[in-house]
């Protein structure tokens, strides 16, 4: 008899798992260590943590190792891991003015408080493939580190300090209008509650913060390219570590550690509809785990775009943006198409056949009048009417 997907599933799964393991190790190269991935694949780890919604560099590195570098799958594993843990605390609001800045730039002003700090970035270097990477040895790394250290005059290291923000300059000049929205002060935890629309800003920003970078970029880009009218300027982009605090049961605020964050404050001009009111600047805000400039910037664009009253462009439509940039959910659903659909397909098939039969019968009646030579389609069969809304998965 033919193939029936009935018995034998367990064996098939086990073999598939074995093959995955085989593909990972078959070349017999030395196993990657988790600290190696944590440090040398830093941006991949940051992406996994951000999209996974969990700050855990070691676990993100394990996930990357296990998934052969597939960022989607690795983020997916972190998300699933969160489900096994209680939520004990909500942190106190993070204050990015306390950030130990590793990178901060502004495109709005030439000079900003504390100066422009490029920090680690590939933005201004040529993306030329460096084949010397092939022969990199531990000695090379050590040599680089020694040279690097030798160039630092420790006596000239300034004391560690924090910097004022660019938006403070704008506020002082009265160019930035306070949002004054009560929705900014309520927290909706999207990991514990389903999102409903219209979604409060806290939910929107959380969704964006866990969203898939590529998805955010596509929609953010669409908004700049003409689908919507957002063309903001980077007011300030910061990357660095901020202290994290929680309130313990006795009410004492306790410092629990530091996390690296990228923050983008995007300035755009808001044109007002009322004639007498002057236009003003407003901020679109982005914040994500680790270093990911692109994501933070696109969050900032979309945060602003979703507050536009005109929802005719995709990026301005909160429901469209938030549902479709959720990478882990869209990946799961896309891949479910690989599951068998024979029962649901059978249901559609049965409808389609009957519809074709009815169409044939009608054609036969009509054919009695007209000449049979006028076949409806090239292959002689009448065009089948397809179900306008096919059975879902």
């Amino acid at each position, binding site marked *: 008899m033919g193939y029936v997907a009935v018995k034998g599933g367990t064996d098939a799964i086990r073999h598939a798992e074995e093959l995955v393991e085989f593909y990972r190790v078959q070349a017999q190269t030395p196993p990657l260590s988790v600290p190696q991935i944590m440090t040398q694949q830093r941006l991949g780890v940051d992406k996994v943590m951000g999209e996974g919604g969990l700050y855990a560099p070691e676990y993100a590195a394990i996930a990357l190792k296990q998934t052969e570098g597939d960022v989607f799958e690795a983020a997916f594993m972190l*998300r699933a891991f*969160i489900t096994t843990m209680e939520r004990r605390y909500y942190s106190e609001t993070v204050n990015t003015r306390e950030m130990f800045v590793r990178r901060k730039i502004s495109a709005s002003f030439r000079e900003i408080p504390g100066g422009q700090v490029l920090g680690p970035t590939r933005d201004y270097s040529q993306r030329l493939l460096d084949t010397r990477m092939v022969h990199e040895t531990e000695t090379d790394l050590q040599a680089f580190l020694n040279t690097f250290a030798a160039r630092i005059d420790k006596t000239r290291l300034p004391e560690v300090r924090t910097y004022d923000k660019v938006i403070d300059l704008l506020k002082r000049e009265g160019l930035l209008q306070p949002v004054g929205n009560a929705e900014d002060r309520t927290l909706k935890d999207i990991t*514990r509650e389903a999102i409903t629309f219209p979604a409060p800003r806290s939910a929107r920003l959380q969704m964006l913060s866990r969203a898939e970078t590529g998805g955010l970029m596509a929609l953010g880009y669409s908004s700049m390219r003409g689908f919507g009218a957002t063309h903001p300027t980077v007011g300030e982009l910061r990357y660095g570590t901020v202290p994290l605090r929680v309130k313990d049961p006795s009410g004492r605020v306790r410092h629990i550690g530091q996390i690296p964050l990228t923050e983008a404050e995007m300035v755009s001009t808001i044109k007002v509809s009322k004639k007498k009111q002057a236009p003003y600047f407003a901020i679109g805000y982005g914040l994500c785990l680790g270093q990911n400039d692109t994501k933070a910037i696109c969050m900032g664009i979309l945060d602003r775009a979703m507050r536009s009253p005109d929802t005719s462009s995709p990026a301005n439509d909160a429901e469209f943006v938030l549902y479709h940039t959720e990478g882990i959910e869209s990946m799961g659903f896309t891949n*479910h198409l690989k599951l068998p659909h024979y029962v649901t397909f059978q249901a*559609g098939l049965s*409808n389609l056949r009957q519809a074709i039969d009815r169409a044939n019968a009608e054609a036969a009646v009509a054919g009695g009048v007209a000449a049979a030579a006028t076949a409806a389609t090239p292959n002689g069969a009448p065009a089948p*009417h397809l179900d306008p*809304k096919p059975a879902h998965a």
Partner: protein
Amino acid sequence: MIENTKYARRYHFAFIDESTKKEIRRKLLKAVAIPGYQVPYSSPEMPIARGWGTGGLHVTLAIIGRGDVFKIIDQGSDASVNACNLRDFVHRMTDCKTTYDTKEATLIQTRHRITEEELTEQQIMVFQVPQPEPLRGVERYEFKTRQMHGEADYAKMWVSLYESIVRHGDIMLGAGYPVKVNGRYIMAPSPIPRWDVPNLHQAKTLYLFGAGREKRLYAVPPFTTVEPLEFEDVKFRIEQFKDVYCYKTHYTRAFLDELYLDDGSREHVINDSNFLDKIEQGIPITPFSNPYIL
């Protein structure tokens, strides 16, 4: 350095943490209290991909106890890969007994079928739901469909059914045929084939529905009226397997799958794998009584 114990973490019973399971159970109670109404819930991430049965797993894991006997089917089969994988996961996280036998199970999770054997008051059936919103085809915005449900404004739905009849001579909805539950809410019965829809009506069993990606739970409590949408002159009907029978058992009164054999010929076989096994082995069966089977 990282402490070693950190990685030796044991998984919690039924995977999900207790407070989240409690939240899901509270939402299920609400769903049971308002038959057919879609209750939003937290929908935690599972180690199974979205769209592969996470909603069903949430419900299963929130209500399963150590004494439960668990069965899972995917499009009628206990042993298709997705069913195997989910059964293995539930078993690993709960250590509950698992079974293929419809009669023996206390808790059955299903993807897109109701068993051919009638279920009892002692059993609970959990449906995996890809699209909980029956109005999605006529209204793309969740915001508006919630409003339409609130106002029992189902005009667009009726118009679309009518238009389908005008265009195609019939209501062209196959699996997932919309039903009205307890005379109030229109509900999408997961995409079960129309064949299974009558088995929701006045059933003895509690039916729970979980849509993970869309973060909605709903329910059909036992002995609840479930009516497929139909017109006075165009009635609801189920798939008809005319002049065909199960080639292994010659049984006709079950949902049949089409098989294409190696020689290109076509046969039919009973879709419900446990039902097929029982008939083949001569074990007595107790099918649902389905008034729509001709």
